[in-house]
């Protein structure tokens, strides 16, 4: 067994049973010398985010007329200026933390992101955003392909998914652990002492006999192996006690685990977090304290702000990029249930210490004229301006330092997208 990084640095507190050459892996010593890791946190806003309620073109007269109950009054939005098309934009009033981050220049909004003939299905849509492939959305995830491109052997902990099952974004040949709660990530036994230790070592040895001639079974072996190989390192994260404490929402707790993993330097580079409930077909209640969308914004804001402040305090902000996506935006005109149905293009967010904050792209003009070029579907939905793969390309090239054209199957680089 090699002497591991942690043993070398801290004198062997945690003994790894397996060691991996982690690409780009950054030791505490290197960090102390001022070098930086590059962590990516993919944030999925599940259900189809109504971005017009998150980033509101509050002076557009059609915003108010097409959304009589949902439009945020101009006096309520948190104004953040105008974009290059001179549309005044404001954040949802509950996003006071994101406003601070925006004002510090560490938050970017990329407007009207989507793709041609955008799917309005949650499932096809999520698959497309996850694979970055509108034509074949059943393949591996775009981040999964990145992980697979790293030099092998790839450490299973290079990725960390904070949800219970593997999201499509991270689907890869590399097994990415799902660790919803570091504290519950442990191996139990009906016995104790030496008997329990014998069971565990038997499980580890069995998992090493991967039946390569049976690929479907081998997949389960891969998960088992990755689980057993990561237990000890994950256990170190469970002891992370940030101050001040994060909110108690699942979203914020997941971000706390992410910050813990970064702080403990366990080697993870890519994280996946999600906040759900954006499928607001009815009673969306954008403007009511405690209303459905208001609460969604509260969860988003409070979780991200706690994470941002924690990372800044730990000196990890410059190592971190958060990138958000949602499967689609919503229809411009509100429906009869004071909600919004499935729409098209939406807004992506990028947050981090190296982010060049600001407003990218242009807001839609909400005039319901069918010829309005910023809209589609008879001016029912927002038409995309920036292909979402151009945003991914920017992240792959400029943050993860890889070749986006290879991983995305084409050159999607676009000028003017220097948010990172």
């Amino acid at each position, binding site marked *: 067994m090699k002497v591991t990084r942690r043993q070398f640095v801290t004198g062997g507190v945690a003994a790894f049973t397996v060691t991996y050459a982690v690409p780009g892996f950054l030791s505490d010593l290197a960090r102390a010398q001022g070098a930086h890791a590059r962590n990516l946190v993919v944030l999925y806003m599940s259900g189809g985010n109504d971005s017009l309620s998150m980033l509101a073109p509050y002076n557009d007269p059609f915003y108010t007329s097409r959304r009589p109950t949902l439009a945020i009054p101009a006096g309520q939005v948190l104004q953040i200026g105008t974009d290059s098309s001179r549309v005044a934009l404001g954040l949802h009033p509950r996003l006071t933390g994101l406003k601070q981050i925006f004002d510090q220049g560490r938050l970017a909004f990329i407007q009207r992101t989507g793709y041609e003939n955008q799917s309005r299905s949650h499932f096809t849509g999520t698959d497309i955003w996850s694979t970055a492939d509108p034509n074949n959305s059943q393949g591996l995830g775009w981040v999964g392909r990145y992980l697979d491109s790293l030099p092998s052997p790839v450490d299973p902990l290079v990725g960390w998914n904070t949800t219970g099952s593997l999201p499509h974004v991270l689907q890869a040949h590399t097994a990415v652990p799902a660790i919803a709660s570091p504290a519950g990530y442990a191996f139990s036994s009906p016995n104790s002492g030496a008997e329990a230790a014998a069971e565990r070592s038997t499980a580890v040895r069995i998992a090493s006999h991967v039946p390569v001639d049976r690929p479907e079974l081998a997949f389960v072996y891969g998960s088992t192996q990755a689980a057993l190989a990561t237990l000890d390192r994950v256990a170190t994260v469970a002891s992370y006690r940030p101050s001040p404490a994060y909110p108690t929402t699942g979203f914020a707790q997941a971000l706390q685990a992410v910050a813990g993993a970064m702080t403990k330097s366990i080697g993870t580079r890519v994280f996946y977090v999600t906040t759900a409930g954006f*499928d607001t077909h009815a009673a969306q209640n954008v403007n009511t304290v405690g209303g459905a969308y208001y609460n969604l914004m509260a969860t988003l804001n409070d979780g991200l702000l706690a994470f941002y402040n924690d990372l800044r305090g730990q000196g990890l902000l410059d190592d971190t990029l958060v990138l958000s996506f949602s499967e689609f935006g919503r229809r411009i005109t509100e429906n009869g249930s004071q909600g919004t149905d499935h729409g098209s293009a939406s807004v992506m967010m990028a947050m981090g210490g190296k982010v060049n904050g600001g407003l990218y792209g242009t807001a839609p003009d909400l005039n319901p004229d069918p010829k309005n070029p910023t809209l589609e579907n008879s001016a029912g939905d927002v038409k995309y301006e920036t292909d979402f793969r151009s945003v991914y390309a920017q992240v792959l090239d400029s943050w993860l330092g890889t070749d986006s054209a290879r991983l995305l199957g084409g050159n999607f680089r676009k000028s003017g997208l220097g948010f990172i």
Partner: protein
Amino acid sequence: MAATADRHIEHLLRRAGFGARPDELALYGAMSINQAVNALVTFESVPDAVDGLIGQPGYIGMTIAGAFAPQANINHARQRWLFRMVHSDRPLQEKMTLFWHNHFATGYTKIAGAVGAAEAARYLAAKSTEDPGQVRGQIELLRERALGSFNDILLGIAKDTAMLIWLDGRTNTKAKPQENFGREIMELFTVGVGHYTEADVYAAARVFSGWNLQRAGGAATDPASRQEFNYFANQHDTAAKTFSFAIYPDGGKTIPARAASDGMQDGVDFINGLAAHPNTARYIAAKLYRFFVTDFGAVNVTFVNRVAAVFLQSRGDMRAVMREVLLSPELWDESAYFARYSWPLEFVVRAIKDVGWPGFSVSDTLTPLSNMGQILFEPPDVSGWDAGQTWFSTSAMLARMNFASTLAANQKFNLATAVKSAGASKTPEALLSYFVEALPTAPLDASVTAELSNYLRATGGWSGADAQLQAKAPGVVHLIAGSPEYQLV
């Protein structure tokens, strides 16, 4: 603990049920495959007595604080369904109900947010015989029609209270049509994505305008009071609706304009059109293939063609369809054995049937199932659970291993006694073969068997004494039930 092994019957019961209890093995093991399939698909001839066994000695337990109220408490409803999966003598009925629950995936939390916890449990899980207002919850609808006609199931779902809340049909009116149900009935319940247009979504929303809820059974405080489906003629869009596909047998694509009083027929016509659509037959056939035959590799086109044809010829008679599925050569091909990734529920219930249940409680499966990614009445979204490899994240696999540990620890005295009375405690090899037979798995490579043998020999010499059996029997059961091979069914 299973005693005898008929690998074909075991295979059938892993697919058409949740594994086999010893009495199920004995019952079906005495039949030919044809007889067994016939018995499974004609389950109405077996009394529906399983709920009466709850709380009786000899059956798996429940942990219930206060009165058992599955019609008002979702946790109790979950335990009741798990109890049925373990002890029902109609295994295919429970398996098919799970298939439909996944197909018409409806989530408790949203409904509870809209109408409160007790009402949500009621609309999802109440039996009409136990409810003061004779409410029949969604799962009882699906259970009752598990092998009924697909049209009936679809029509029942379109009028189901839980569904009308879940997909917002209750707010669908002519002035402001609500697209949610109209979209999903095409995308997820019938023809599938790619076989409808955005214009069809708008039209489908208008078809179901006025299919809302009303309060019945007196004031809200009356226990019989309930929200139930009603067709509100004055909220129905009476104009004609034209689709991109045939609605009528003559190929007609337009539902004609109708008087508001007759407008409910729009929805009936539309449902009949969707149920008769060739892509519905193919979509259902492909899902049945994934659920009952295999989820390895591509869907078998021959199977889909054949089962879709039965679906269409029988007008969606699910009994005829399932007879075809369970007798299909694809299911009985040697390559189909252990060629499915078990769902968490399949794994948990099968493990209970294989390892034993006296002294165990179904409530002890709920948190593990959640960690494995499957909570009854709480699918992740309306498309149901992402099955197959998605079940096998590292934490889900750990949860499976840890459930195997919990169950084995709970049963350790029973396991030690069983292996001893079977005369299999003399040597580690005898004990290992006993448990390898009791917990059927995909073939174990010799290297794996050798590791299990080594485990039995580790930590001291073999005495076969009770203390050793009470450690090694649960230890090896934990390792087998937690093995990758056991996760395949």
